[in-house]
């Protein structure tokens, strides 16, 4: 079932990227996608970690929220750079997600919003570097953590 979904994703990507719809090209596409799925299945890569489809229903909602956050913190980072009021601080936060994929999404979301970077991680504790105490408080309120846990949907 999961390999079928992977094949469908790959063939959609092929059709969108190539733009040529002759019989030869499409059959080559089907052949190479099938080969990729075969290799992935042989390497036992198709599981919840290799193909995380379990949070796709909630993904759009999360992405809209994340883009809003990125826009906001872009503005405040620009303000900090122009003002020159830099008071960096380093602290640790605890991630409450269960799966590794969700933890990676959480760490990447922290890094993606300008002003905060995850510098190190051990099991479920992240070390975060923030440009300013405002950015630090945004992470420490655990709003993003709750959002990613909701996105994971395992609790």
């Amino acid at each position, binding site marked *: 079932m999961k390999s079928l979904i992977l094949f469908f994703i790959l063939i959609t990507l092929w059709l*969108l*990227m190539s*733009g040529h719809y002759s019989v030869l090209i499409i059959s080559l596409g089907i052949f190479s996608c099938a080969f990729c799925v075969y290799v992935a299945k042989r390497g036992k890569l198709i599981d919840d970690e290799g193909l995380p489809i379990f949070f796709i229903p909630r993904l759009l909602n999360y992405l809209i929220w994340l883009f809003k956050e*990125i*826009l906001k913190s*872009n503005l405040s*980072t*620009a303000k900090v*750079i*122009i003002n*020159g009021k*830099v*008071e*960096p*601080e*380093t*602290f*640790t936060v605890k991630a409450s997600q269960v799966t590794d994929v969700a933890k990676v999404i959480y*760490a*990447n*979301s922290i*890094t*993606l*919003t*300008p*002003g*905060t*970077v*995850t*510098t*190190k*991680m*051990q099991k479920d*504790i992240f*070390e975060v*570097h923030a*440009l300013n105490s405002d950015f*630090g408080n945004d992470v420490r309120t655990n709003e993003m953590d709750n959002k990613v846990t909701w996105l994971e949907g395992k609790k």
Partner: protein
Amino acid sequence: MELILDIFTGICFFIGSLSIIIGACGLIKLPDVFSRIHAAGMIDTGGTAFFILGMIFQTGWSLITVKLILIGVFIFFTSPVTSHVTANLARQKNILPLGKKIGKIL
């Protein structure tokens, strides 16, 4: 209609180039490695997002739009990885960030 789209493209390019210029200033101005990563992250997110949005206004609905969106998606996935790798390498070389540390650090 063409004119409106051109104006939107211009606004998007203006915001994008503004955030790239501010990010580049930050890369020079900020004090240490970890702070400079934030400025680079601003270029990665704000700069590219607005430039791609402006280009999408110009192409309209076609396969090129899909490719532009895919470029955005791939940058969206890879830029935090490079930021994290830079920061993590600096930490592994025992470079401590400036400023205050709250609580115990890993």
